[in-house]
């Protein structure tokens, strides 16, 4: 045998064969990857280029002729540029304009008078040139003649070009630049406050023996179920000029930084609490025993054992809260008063002033802190090591009367804060005319009589939430499965993973604006989905992709890879394995993803505020619009409708999950006998 081999020419290098299964998996992964590219990467790129799209007055584009006093004897044609150089009518800075910029042509003539008998002619030197005669648009290279009284109404229009002038304009407008500082400040303060409160809560719930832990845990998660607009509305009723507790503010106004910080603490608290609580729930009792035997004080033990043990949770929570606050739009819109914030600036530029280019500039700026927070968080996560070794002894708190009472008091305070905000909204929604007629009435629920979208908006929101939950869970889970269970192909998997992590760093406002630029282009083959429910679903799934993806990955990683190995050797195609084993085992995680997407689709404002159309108005957007129009009590009523819907969805989820869990258990008993065969 060995001899025979010597006569053979050298064969191909040995390579593991790619099976049909792998090819199929890669193809599916590719499809989900393409989805992320179209729904995320390309729109963001288009937005970036939009921020560089500028409008300038190109004075070489216009030519003039002037008559003598008799209305005849025309002068030689002269360009606007030459006229401007001669008398410096417009400084260079005036030539940079927005989409609605106008220059009065008469200003180019120093001796212009609308009473003189002199006549004027104007034409473009290229087809691009356009100007207004009064409010009439004129294009082209034909001479147009006006008497002086009409010539004063001639306005030159800017043309499109590319450059950084939007950014220079941004940084030379103090009110816009101040928003950067404001946003960072508010985010930092809110993060510090939220972290302190959340740590206190998590500490009390994990390290004390107080009563009512279950109830407190439930109450703390309530803010997840409402849009961030709602705490703003609650604060207006609690501390506004007609607020119940106005006097507590000692003359300070709730409209502004104070309101934004208090509201931010409310809506970020559950996020921070869940992360820190997970970090504090694992502790090694041996460390505490060591501390006690070394006679360390409680205070010292706290700072040298407890806090370091939870440090990765704290860092992670800090970045999550910071990002949530700096990218949130609903809360500062309602309670921010005149205090400029980046996310609100985007809305004001786009909706208030139709200045899409400046909206894109603010978006690019808002991306920077969000990206930084995201990158730093990823880096610290990587350094995290397992805290618990196999020999760890779980820490069991001992009852300590004083400490437990203090914990209970603190948790009660937080619970009152959360319930008070929600309760205030419900009361406000039911009162006839705050504060002058406090009789009860359902008048504020007559949404059809208000601006904002009426009851249809509420039903649309439920439709969106259901579609997002179903379609989103499918896409996310499929993507996560392919990236986790495909062998080799490291480059593709790495790229996919990065794409899946990206949505976390992209604020909703930015994503929504990017979608306008990308999908509202008649040249785009996907233009058809603009203004439909489909684009709202696409946007919402993409916006909340990352957390769902991570949940799916965690569940999939718990599955022993041996299943695949066994299936491979038995020549069972992967999709059979997927439907028979993987999917049933991962069902609880899948449900978790679905409910996460449902709740967030109900409450999101920022991602969809630019994308809804008349027949796809949403409840959360209706809150925004009703508050904007001053109908704040109906806005509170709609907010409470979202809250109750989410509570119902959560309850339903709990019931279904319990039933399924019972069935999964049964499946496991069968599986133990079936699979090894």
């Amino acid at each position, binding site marked *: 045998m060995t001899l025979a081999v010597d006569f053979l020419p050298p064969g191909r290098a040995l390579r593991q064969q790619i099976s049909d299964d792998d090819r199929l998996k890669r193809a599916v992964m590719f499809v989900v990857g393409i989805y992320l590219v179209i729904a995320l990467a390309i729109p963001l790129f288009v937005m970036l280029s939009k921020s560089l799209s500028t409008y300038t007055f190109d004075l070489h584009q216009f030519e003039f002729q002037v008559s003598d006093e008799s209305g005849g004897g025309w002068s030689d044609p002269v360009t606007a540029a030459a006229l401007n150089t001669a008398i410096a009518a417009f400084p260079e800075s005036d030539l940079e*304009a*927005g*989409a*609605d*910029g*106008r220059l*009065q042509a008469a200003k180019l003539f120093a001796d212009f008078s609308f009473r003189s008998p002199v006549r004027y002619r104007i034409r473009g030197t290229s087809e691009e040139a356009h100007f*207004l005669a*009064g*409010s*009439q*648009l004129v*294009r082209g290279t034909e001479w147009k003649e006006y008497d002086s009284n009409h010539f004063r*109404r001639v*306005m030159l*229009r800017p043309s499109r070009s590319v450059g950084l002038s939007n950014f220079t304009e941004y940084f030379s*407008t*103090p*009110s816009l630049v*101040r928003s950067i500082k404001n946003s960072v400040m508010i985010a930092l303060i809110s993060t510090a406050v939220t972290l302190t409160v959340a740590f206190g809560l998590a500490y009390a719930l994990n390290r004390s023996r107080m009563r009512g832990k279950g109830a407190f845990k439930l109450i703390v998660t309530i803010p997840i179920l409402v849009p961030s607009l709602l705490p703003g509305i609650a604060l*207006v009723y609690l501390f506004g*000029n*007609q607020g119940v507790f106005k006097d507590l503010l000692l003359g*300070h*106004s709730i*409209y*502004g*930084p104070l309101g934004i910080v208090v509201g931010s603490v409310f809506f970020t608290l559950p996020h921070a609490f869940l992360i820190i609580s997970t970090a504090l729930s694992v502790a090694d009792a041996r460390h505490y025993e060591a501390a006690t035997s070394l006679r360390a004080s409680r205070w010292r033990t706290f700072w040298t054992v407890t806090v370091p043990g939870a440090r990765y949770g704290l860092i992670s929570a800090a970045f999550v809260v910071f990002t949530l606050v700096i990218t949130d739009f609903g809360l500062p*819109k309602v309670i921010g*008063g*005149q*205090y*400029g914030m980046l996310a609100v600036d985007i809305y*004001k530029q*786009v*909706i*208030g*002033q*139709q200045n*899409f280019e400046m909206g894109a500039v603010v978006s690019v700026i808002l991306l920077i802190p969000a990206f930084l927070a995201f990158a730093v968080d990823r880096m610290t996560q990587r350094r995290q090591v397992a805290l618990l070794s196999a020999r760890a002894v779980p820490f069991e708190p001992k009852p300590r009367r004083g400490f437990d009472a203090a914990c209970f008091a603190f948790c009660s305070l937080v619970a009152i804060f959360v319930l008070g905000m929600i309760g205030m909204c419900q009361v406000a929604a039911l009162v*006839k*005319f*705050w*504060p*002058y007629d406090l009789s009860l009435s359902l008048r504020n629920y007559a949404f*059809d*009589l*208000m*601006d*904002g979208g*009426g009851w249809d908006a509420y039903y649309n929101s439920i439709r969106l939430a259901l579609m997002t939950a179903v379609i989103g869970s499918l896409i996310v889970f499929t993507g996560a499965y392919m990236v986790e269970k495909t062998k080799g192909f490291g480059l593709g998997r790495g790229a996919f993973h990065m794409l899946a992590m990206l949505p976390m760093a992209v604020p909703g406002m930015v994503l929504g604006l990017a979608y306008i630029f990308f999908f*509202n282009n*008649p040249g785009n083959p996907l233009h058809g989905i603009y203004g439909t429910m489909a684009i709202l679903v696409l946007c919402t799934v993409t916006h909340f992709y990352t957390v769902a993806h991570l949940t799916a990955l965690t569940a999939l990683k718990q599955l022993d890879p041996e299943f695949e190995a066994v299936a491979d050797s038995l020549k069972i195609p992967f999709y059979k394995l997927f439907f028979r084993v993987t999917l049933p085992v991962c069902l609880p995680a899948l449900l978790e993803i679905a409910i996460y997407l449902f709740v967030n689709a109900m409450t999101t404002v920022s991602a969809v505020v630019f994308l809804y*159309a*008349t027949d796809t108005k949403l409840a959360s957007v209706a809150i925004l*619009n009703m508050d*904007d*129009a*001053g*109908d704040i009590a109906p806005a509170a009523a709609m907010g409470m409708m979202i809250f109750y819907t989410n509570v119902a969805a959560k309850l339903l989820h709990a019931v279904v999950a319990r039933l399924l869990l019972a069935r999964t258990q049964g499946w496991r008993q069968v599986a133990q006998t079936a699979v090894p065969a």
Partner: protein
Amino acid sequence: MPFSKAFLGAATAFLLASTAAYAEAELTVYTSVEAVDLDRYKETFEKAHPDIKINWVRDSTGVMTAKLLAEKDNPQADVVWGVAATSLLLLKSEGMLEPYAPKNVEALDPRFVDGDKPPSWVGMDAYVAALCYNTVEAEKLGLTPPTSWKDLTKPEYKGHVVMPNPNSSGTGFLDVSAWLQTFGEEEAWSFMDALHENIAAYTHSGSKPCKMAASGETVIGVSFEFPGAKAKTSGAPIDIIFPAEGSGWEAEATAIIAGTANLEAAKTLVDWSISKEANEMYNVGYAVVAYPGVAKPIENLPDDVAEKMIENDFEWAANNRARILKEWQKRYDAKSEPKS
């Protein structure tokens, strides 16, 4: 038989033509009229023209304008019915409107018709700037009601005036442009400098200041007459004050979008939108309508609202909008940091 062939051809052509005439036309109509009024407008029109069906697309003025501009190269609307004239001038300057002189346009108050011939837009009704003044809160604070715009700069009102931000609200812009037109630029800016000292907040929308006054969040809301009358009806303790110098105003107007596939139906709608019947319909909510002699007084509003309106030069306002807003932003946005 050449005769019968020709006859057949003619008959077919006639049949085709008549089915075309009876086919139901559908119009996509963009609007910013109040949500409450939509069904009533649609019903009244479709009763008069059963062969044309209206599909509303409604949003606030700012959003609607943004939407129309965004669709500039690929318009989705056939007609715009009930959007601010200033916004329509913006669309006109982009060449997006189809000029058309509707039947009987000469019957309208000329202030409500585009200056060019044929006009690109025709007006329906007007909303007029007014102050909403909360009498209960004013009494608590011992304030006296203002009677003019200039009164608003009195030190006693410090922190008690709310007005819409002209950068995001059409109502806010019509106030500023009216002051510039009636006081002259220099005086107007110094008036606004003084007013700024008294302003508690600049809101995003034009009706919010009035609703804030209605609920006691502020004492004086610079707004317009319509939400004031409505809030008073539902029990708010407010007075509606028209300042002595005269009020800025904005026309709600109708226009045809250039390039519509339903030009004939669109013309029918625009013809009807300026009819006496339509104006009577607008009068249910609006005190001032474009058709002279139609308007009947509205509950809680004086009979002579039309006389409070200043001479408003829409074209000047539209062509100077960018400049005015930039100046406003420079003066007041930069300073509008809260004190707390």
